[in-house]
């Protein structure tokens, strides 16, 4: 019997008991167990997705973009499997697969949209390769049992070197389940895990070599990302075409140099961070022309409007979100949907009715006070959120929570690349919390934020209560947690039945 049945059964049981004892939804646990029993579980189950998978990676916007794609495809009648609300490591994907699999391994889905941590890309892509198993009647020559490119194997069998039985030939043909790989952007994030920003790009570049048939969907405006498509023709680029938008901040520019030759890039326009329209004066590497683009962008208080252009078609978009970065998320999702031949009217309709993803601009009310959660995990994301906050002039209270667990990034020095300096203009009260609350407190001092408006409450539960109390009747509470702080906060709110548990 295939090990996968045992793996599915054991993992499903673990998920059940974990839920029964109130430990969230079991999260990564079923995946961990399934992979221990059958290390090929991801490949075997993914193989059952008739339309294959799309991988979404990059520093910022993965979760929101994956959610957008999922909703567009679902509204277009597809059954989508994704790992939202869970971990974006290999085991999280295994958990998501298990939760949608029958005990016989069939899936109630026909396409996968996997959000993948950048450092997990090499492992996952290798992971998803279907290894041809020795059938009872045929022995496959060693050179064909390897991880070879399907085309190469095909070539070999065409030339008559080996004759695969029909069933196995089919598997070989289906081997490349990865239909598209999307990279949203590459920013400075969790350098304690990746080492350096350049390494992140190198990790992804190396990983995509193992999926040569996949369409690359790349951000043309991010030189780090666009350089991944250099010399390849199977690429779909997305980008912003708007001459009126330019970056207000000089901070958080992670990379101004050409990844191809190392010279400093010239920017005709910079939208934010190192995202913009650029050209290398030395080697000629320049921003590719995007096939999917947005123009006439208007950033309003609670929404963004833009004209979205897909090759020769276009549609008007009204996105119920704030911040230019969400236009990029919408562009990326539009690119993926158009690659899967979803009609533009259907894309427009879904994007106009979006609800925020897990911990990304989730709103709630507690004791009659309005609050919103913005996950913040790196300087660029932070500065974008600040831009969004500063679009309304109403008085506000802030709850800032800084943790330094592994999933947050153990190095918290990025807070010194964030513009806390602007906080004194927007907040009447600030509560700081989390494992590294003392560091945040210090950062605010050096940002010249008056100590009169700052309260330190290391414990997140206490901090939330204090922040709610300090929020005035007409104010809004802005909560800016790091990843594990966001999970802890959501758990509190789920217990109080203020927010839904994402895993149920």
């Amino acid at each position, binding site marked *: 019997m295939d090990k996968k049945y045992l793996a599915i059964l054991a993992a499903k049981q673990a998920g059940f008991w974990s839920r029964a004892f109130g430990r969230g939804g079991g999260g990564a646990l079923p995946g961990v167990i399934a992979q221990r029993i059958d290390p090929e579980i991801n490949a075997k189950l993914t193989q059952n997705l008739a339309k294959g998978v799309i991988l979404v990676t990059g520093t910022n916007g993965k979760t929101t973009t994956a959610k957008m794609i999922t909703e567009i495809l679902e509204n277009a009648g597809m059954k989508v499997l994704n790992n939202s609300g869970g971990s974006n490591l290999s085991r999280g994907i295994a958990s998501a697969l298990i939760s949608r699999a029958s005990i016989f391994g069939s899936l109630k889905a026909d396409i996968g949209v996997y959000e993948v941590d950048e450092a997990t890309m090499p492992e996952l892509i290798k992971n998803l390769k279907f290894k041809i198993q020795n059938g009872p009647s045929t022995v496959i020559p060693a050179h064909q049992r390897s991880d070879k490119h399907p085309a190469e194997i095909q070539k070999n069998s065409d030339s008559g070197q080996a004759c695969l039985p029909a069933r196995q030939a089919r598997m070989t043909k289906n081997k490349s389940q990865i239909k598209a790989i999307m990279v949203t952007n590459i920013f400075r994030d969790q350098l304690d895990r990746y*080492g350096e920003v350049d390494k992140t790009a190198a990790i992804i570049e190396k990983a995509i070599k193992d999926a040569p048939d996949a369409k690359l969907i790349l951000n043309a405006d991010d030189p780090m990302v666009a350089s991944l498509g250099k010399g390849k023709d199977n690429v779909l680029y997305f980008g912003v075409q708007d001459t009126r938008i330019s970056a207000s901040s000089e901070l958080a520019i992670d990379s101004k140099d050409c990844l191809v030759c190392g010279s400093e890039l010239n920017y005709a326009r910079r939208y934010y961070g190192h995202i913009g329209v650029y050209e290398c004066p030395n080697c000629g590497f320049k921003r590719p022309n995007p096939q999917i683009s947005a123009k006439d962008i208007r950033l309003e208080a609670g929404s963004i409007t833009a004209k979205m252009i897909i090759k020769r078609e276009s549609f008007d978009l009204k996105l119920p979100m704030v911040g230019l970065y969400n236009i990029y998320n919408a562009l990326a999702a539009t690119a993926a949907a158009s690659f899967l031949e979803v009609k533009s009217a259907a894309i427009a309709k879904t994007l106009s009715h979006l609800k925020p993803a897990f911990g990304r601009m989730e709103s709630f009310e507690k004791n009659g006070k309005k609050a919103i959660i913005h996950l913040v995990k790196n300087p660029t994301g932070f500065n974008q959120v600040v831009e969004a906050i500063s679009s309304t002039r109403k008085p506000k209270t802030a709850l800032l929570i800084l943790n*330094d667990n*592994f999933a947050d990034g*153990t190095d918290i020095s990025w807070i*010194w690349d964030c513009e806390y300096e602007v906080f004194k203009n927007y907040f009447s009260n600030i509560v700081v919390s989390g494992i590294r609350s*003392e560091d945040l*407190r210090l950062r605010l001092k*050096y940002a010249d934020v008056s100590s009169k408006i700052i309260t330190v409450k290391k414990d997140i539960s206490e901090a939330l209560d204090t922040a709610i109390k300090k929020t005035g009747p007409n104010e809004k509470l802005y909560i800016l947690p790091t990843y594990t702080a966001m999970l802890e906060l959501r758990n509190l709110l789920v217990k109080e039945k203020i927010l839904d548990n994402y895993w149920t």
Partner: protein
Amino acid sequence: MQSLTIYHMYPDAMNLYGDLGNVVTLRRRMLERGISVDIVNVGRGVKADFSKADIVFLGGGQDRGQKIIADDLAKRGPAIKREVERGLVCLTICGGFQLFGKYFKTKEGEMLPGISVFDAYTVGSDKRCIGNVVLDIEAEAKKWKSTLNTLVGFENHSGLTYLEGKTRPLGKVKIGYGNTGDRKYEGAVYNNCYGTYLHGPVLPKNPHFADHLIQMAINRKYGSWARMKQIDDRIELAAHKAAVLRAKTAKTAHI
């Protein structure tokens, strides 16, 4: 009114781990004491007279950033060395620290020339030293007249730095990997020039280190050995203490 000039070297190419926070800290602590501050950004190809500098700051960068600035820095090497012999105060972090040594030989075998302020050399390795660091700086702290005997920060480097001759380490490693990854010594001191792998950034949470740099610069420029006045450091010291405690419990990340 006393005034000091900080030369911030290559702020674009060499600012990876919030290093700007070090300059922000020096500036604020001077202003609080009524010392006026002039910050000069010295980029590639920008003319700079190091005899006019009171403090030179060079942050960390990626390998790529280091390669970009190495040649430019090498041209300035003799001028910087001459001033260091005359007591110029310098703080160099991570990649900047490496280039203040004799050379950095990367893992791929490429040689990046340093300016030999420190009698030290760096060799790239396969191991990446990442995590919280606590240093015992008792020997230095006596000279600084500081009651705080620790430095706290975060390291992230694969180059290993070996000290020789007259260059001595900044501190003993209590928690972390240190210069050579063997948990022994960290950083470098030569005259009034300091190098360390600690970022975080290093100065905000280590106010005694920041004050020592300012005090040396004041002494050098004005010849006054009067102690600078103490300022309210409760928030800085709370962060220092919390970070030391956290270093004991935090798990180290591995790549």
